[in-house]
């Protein structure tokens, strides 16, 4: 196993245009599950492809296991990758798909069968070995792709949105399966996704990317509870963090922390009058959106997420509040996190 590092890694596709990946410095850890999270066009896949060796960096270095691998071909990097489309070889059976990397890397022939069976049983696809990829369901294809990736016991595992082609129901179970799988084999894994739920659920650490820049690296708790800037604050969480502009700062608070005043036991809380304009019932919770009335934030929009919302009515105004320790502050010009400060609320 090995860790992945990048130093000032940059990729510019067209000279003079903005880079797809800009000055990325990463320091992977042994055996960790690292997630690259970002919207489309954030450079997460380009970053992964550079680590894989499918894309040449414009600048900077990539290290795997402490060794600069910029000039090594994908095969020399001892990495495995699962593609978004799975990229199975359509003309080969499942067995031949899985054995392909062993043959290509000249692993002794007499061990092939045993290794393929080991990988297949790890993913529960032994009964599919003689089928062709087109005879498999989406979930089965994904498992074959995973089996093909682990069969040669790579030092690093790269996964490019492997769940995005599955339907919602299958996605949840496949996600859980992937987590267990990682716990079992313990290989250093880099996982690319645009889905914050996947990132939060699976990642040991999350790298949030936007327009080719790293916005924040941290555990799921850190990036959710303590976002480094307004982009991270709004990209994670659904509905996103409420952001309210005020003189030179932006004040942020999560919808689930914006609740009826009486229900908040904190002694330091910021009272806000909330005029409800819309109510959505989502089964497990309620989403209330409306505007703040009176005081410092008069007329600003806000959203609240509640577990119980039966008693509220559209068009009425209620006494809501946010615990003071839950307030986040961002600089209005740089949109970066700043120290909490005391404001006169009324």
């Amino acid at each position: 196993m090995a860790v992945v590092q990048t130093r000032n890694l940059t990729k510019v596709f067209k000279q003079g245009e903005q880079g797809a990946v800009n000055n990325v410095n990463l320091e992977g850890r042994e055996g960790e599950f690292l997630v690259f999270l970002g919207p489309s066009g954030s450079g997460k896949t380009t970053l992964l492809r550079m680590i894989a060796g499918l894309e040449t960096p414009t600048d900077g270095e990539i290290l795997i296991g402490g060794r600069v691998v910029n000039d090594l071909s994908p095969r020399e990097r001892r990495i495995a990758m699962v593609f978004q489309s799975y990229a199975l070889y359509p003309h080969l059976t499942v067995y031949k798909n899985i054995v392909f990397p062993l043959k290509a890397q000249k692993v002794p022939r007499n061990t092939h069968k045993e290794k393929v069976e080991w990988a297949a049983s790890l993913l529960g696809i032994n009964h599919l070995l003689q089928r062709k990829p087109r005879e498999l369901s989406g979930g089965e294809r994904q498992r074959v792709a995973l089996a093909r990736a682990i069969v040669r016991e790579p030092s690093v595992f790269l996964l490019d949105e492997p769940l995005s082609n599955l339907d919602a129901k299958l996605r949840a179970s496949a996600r859980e399966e992937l987590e267990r799988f990682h716990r079992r084999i313990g290989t250093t894994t880099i996982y690319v996704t645009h889905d914050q739920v996947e990132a939060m659920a699976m990642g040991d650490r999350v790298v949030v990317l936007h327009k080719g820049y790293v916005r924040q690296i941290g555990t799921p708790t850190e990036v959710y509870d303590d976002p480094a800037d307004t982009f991270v604050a709004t990209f994670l969480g659904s509905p996103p963090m409420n952001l309210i502009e005020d003189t030179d700062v932006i004040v942020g608070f999560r919808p689930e922390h914006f609740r009826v005043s009486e229900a908040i036991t904190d002694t330091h809380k910021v009272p806000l009058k909330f005029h409800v304009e819309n109510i959505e019932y989502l089964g497990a919770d309620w989403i209330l959106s409306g505007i703040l009335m009176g005081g410092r934030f008069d007329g600003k929009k806000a959203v609240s997420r509640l577990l119980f919302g039966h008693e509220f009515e559209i068009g009425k105004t209620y006494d809501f509040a946010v615990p003071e320790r839950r307030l986040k502050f961002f600089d209005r010009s740089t949109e970066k996190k700043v120290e909490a400060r005391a404001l006169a609320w009324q």
Partner: protein
Amino acid sequence: MAVNPAQSSDIVAETNGSAAAAAPPSKPKWTKVKSASAAQSPWLGAAMFAPAVLYLAAIIGGPFVLAVMYAFSDVRIGSTSMHYVGLENFRSIIQSPTFRTSIENSFIFTFVSQVIVLVGSTILAFALEKKFRGRGFFRFLILLPWVAPISLGAIGWKWILDSLYSVINWVLVAIHLYKPYSAPMWLGEPHLAMASVILVQSWRLLPFSTVILLAGLTAIPKEIPEAAAIDGAGFWRTLFQVNIPMMLPIINVAVLFGIIFTFTDMTVVYILTAGGPFDSTQVLPSYAYFTGILGSDLAAGAAVSLFLVPVLVAIAYFMLRVAHRAEVV
């Protein structure tokens, strides 16, 4: 093919009809009634289908029937009588050494040129698929021999290979590989003549095959060769175990078309060598033409051309199978 749409539109028409009946009377009924009657009419389908049938009957069916009739008769150009002679024509042409040479040459001509075209077009397709400056221009250049009229191309080659004016020989002499007047007679020596017609035919078919293979190659998702690269496959393994197997169906199409274009074609042979020297480049189509049209023996010519049929039937069978498999996948 013609039946299915008619059937399905029948069903549509029926449901339309019942819907119209159930609908309130205020709705304009006539549009539905009209479309239903148009779809039900058997004449429309037949009328749409007729041009294709007529075309096939007039251009292919008629001549084919005539060829079979002629082959069993004693018809000659200029004579008005025609008698049934049984297998007499076949017996006489099988005994002719020229005929046996033609059959042999036809197979050599087709096989060797197809091997050259297949290898060449695979290399070209892979080269032209890569991005490089001027790729569009190169693709255009490669396509030119296919777009230019074949007779013009062949006449150009006739000059290039001419015994007196050959530029190839001029170059060979200029770089002192050959002495003047002893340079090779490209179209005058049996083996060289065969090689020449094969090369010109390959030159002619190369663009067509390249375009087909290029289409097949671009249809391979980019991730699959990338996955092979990550799995550790080098250039040759990716080529022979991933790219070419994935292109096989389309390669089949290119080869089958190439065989048809070569096996039934006589333009290159006719213009470059007229079958000579000493019948060394005589192929079945040219022999049929020389016997039947130029030699006035229509019956024998027809009999010769009928020998093309078994090969073409076999190819047609394989083509239909490939097409069918492509449909299933």
